[in-house]
């Protein structure tokens, strides 16, 4: 019988690379990702500090006079006034809040639903997985907009119903993505090993599989936020927005419906329109770069070192 050979000393290795630090290092090098990030940080700051930045309170009723309706940009109103004689800049600044709240909340719910469904379908596979994924496919092929209109008409147009409707229709992409990734992760030996020690399914999913797919879920989240914001604006523009809140979509809807175009009041249309483009572009840029960094299938950065 041989004795245990003494273990060779552990060679000094750098401390475990923190996933987050590594991620930041890669993001900082990517001009596209940084552009998106900066675009978003500005809009988030504007939304957060709206009461301090906005020159007027857009929710306070003003008595409109004939010369304050669609007044062009000037000293008192940097971006002019709207159909009710209110300051467009203030409405724009407050409108960012609604867009971001809808974007964050709806995408969070959507990604949670999609992630959970994909995880369960991928892990159990077989009949349960097949059934869940067919259900996903059905939701995926339903045209979004008509269904939104029906849902909002039924539920009533307030902010939470809008968020719910958007969330209920935008989880499918995440579910598909997570499903495919779980299929590959669950075949890894450490999952088999966990089963060999009698680990319950819930433990395996939470401890071994979720951490491996979480980065992917987060990347997907950024893309879903962009879609959610766009959906909210679309609904508001179609007159299905929450009437008690100022959002970019509502601003567009009002301006469009109340003669801003025929009066040539571009200042009532451009700011909310550009705001939507700005935020959606920001999230999309950031989302794609984050996805590139964390999605093993899209990984190219190792080629660039």
């Amino acid at each position, binding site marked *: *019988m*041989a*004795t*245990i*050979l*003494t*273990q060779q000393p*552990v060679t000094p*290795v750098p401390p*475990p690379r923190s996933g987050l630090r590594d991620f930041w290092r890669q993001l900082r090098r990517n001009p596209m990702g940084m552009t998106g990030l900066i675009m978003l940080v500005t809009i988030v700051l504007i939304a957060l500090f709206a009461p301090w930045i906005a020159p007027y309170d857009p929710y306070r009723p003003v008595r409109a006079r004939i010369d304050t309706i669609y007044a062009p940009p000037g000293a008192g109103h940097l971006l002019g006034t709207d159909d009710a004689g209110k300051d467009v800049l203030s409405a724009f600044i407050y409108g960012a809040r609604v867009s971001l709240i809808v974007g964050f909340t709806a995408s969070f719910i959507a990604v949670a639903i999609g992630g959970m469904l994909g995880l369960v379908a991928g892990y159990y596979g077989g009949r349960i997985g097949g059934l869940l994924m067919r259900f996903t496919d059905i939701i995926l092929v339903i045209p979004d907009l008509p269904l939104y209109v029906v849902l909002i008409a039924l539920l009533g147009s307030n902010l939470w119903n809008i968020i719910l409707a958007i969330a209920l229709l935008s989880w499918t992409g995440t579910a598909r993505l997570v499903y495919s990734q779980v299929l590959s992760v669950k075949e*890894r*030996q*450490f999952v*088999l*090993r*966990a*089963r*060999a*020690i*009698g*680990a*319950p399914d819930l*433990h395996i999913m939470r*401890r*071994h599989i979720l*951490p*491996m797919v979480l980065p992917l879920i987060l990347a997907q989240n950024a893309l879903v936020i962009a879609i959610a914001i766009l959906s909210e604006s679309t609904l508001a523009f179609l007159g299905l927005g929450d009437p008690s809140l100022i959002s970019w979509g509502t601003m567009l809807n009002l301006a469009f419906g109340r003669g801003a175009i025929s009066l040539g009041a571009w200042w009532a249309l451009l700011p909310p329109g550009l705001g939507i483009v700005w935020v959606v572009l920001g999230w999309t840029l950031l989302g794609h770069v984050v996805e590139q960094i964390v999605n093993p299938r899209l990984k190219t950065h190792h080629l660039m070192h």
Partner: protein
Amino acid sequence: METARKNGKSDDILLEVKGLKKHFPIQSGFLRRVTGYVKAVDGIDFYIKKGETLGLVGESGCGKSTTGRTILRLLDPTAGEIVFDDPNIGKVDLAKLKRSQLKQVRPNMQIIFQDPFSSLNPRLTVGQIVGEPLAIQGVASGQALKDRVAELLQEVGIRPENMTRYPHAFSGGQRQRIGIARALALNPKLIVCDEPVSALDVSIQAQVLNLLEDLQSKYDLTYLFVAHDLSVVEHISDRVAVMYVGYIVEMADTDSLYYHPKHPYTEALLAAIPKPDPRRRTRPVKLPGDVPSPANPPSGCYFHPRCRYAKDICKAERPPLRDIGNEHWVACHFAEELQLQGVTRLSEIPVIELPRRQAPAPAPTAATPA
């Protein structure tokens, strides 16, 4: 280990596998109809005695790993019995246990995997990895768990200070040690070693094998050692079973099997071992053809199309695995008649052979006296 080999009584048997089958369905077409089966494991019988090491060898794809995994019920068997002598609940047929009941038996059977890289979760620390079985089975928690993990790591030659590191900071051999520590955590009786050293360098292989042997004698472990490297198996096993296309063709204690093989396939395998000593020459045994597909095996004895001793009966009838004396099990119709060549013992090589091999060059000998 020596003692286990000598007294082969039935209550010494830890695990007995009878007629175990694992068939994987082949699905094809739009409707995913089952059009056939890959018979990865096709009716095998063997037993492992307490405290011994049974080596399970065979070519890639012969069903070795599937056997190991089916025994642990990581795969569900198609048919057969897996009788395990559990220290707490006595003999149980694992093939019939429900998943919920299996949890009780699981601590007593563990597995060590081949690939030390994919078998450790990269996002958990070494402490979490080794401690996971203890936490799941509710054996220990808090400081007690930490202490036990430290003890286990020390046992396999990893410094406990490294508990907070992640697997990527370790070499292949060290990772395999971590895997062993984890398998040991619940004080198992049986450990299925699924090619535990195949992915390691030769020098590290020896260290890990020695570690496994030391742990075996210290904790009275029983190993099912799945491997394709015959020299590794010879080194560690008390008995060896040879598999061919999902079927065990020969099983005997290591010495008899290596020196006096009774199955033509074993003979061919042994002849293929590379030998570091030029004096240990064996006649190469040529195997014509390829390993048959387990989805479409030949008739009769699966080995007959490649066997140079095959007769008509081999095509028609599949030979059962039978004991031809001294617990030497063979599945061959002609096991008693064939004179097969095993590996040669170093001591058996006649010294006379040396000058005789120089004979073909007579010229220098003639030249020397002149």
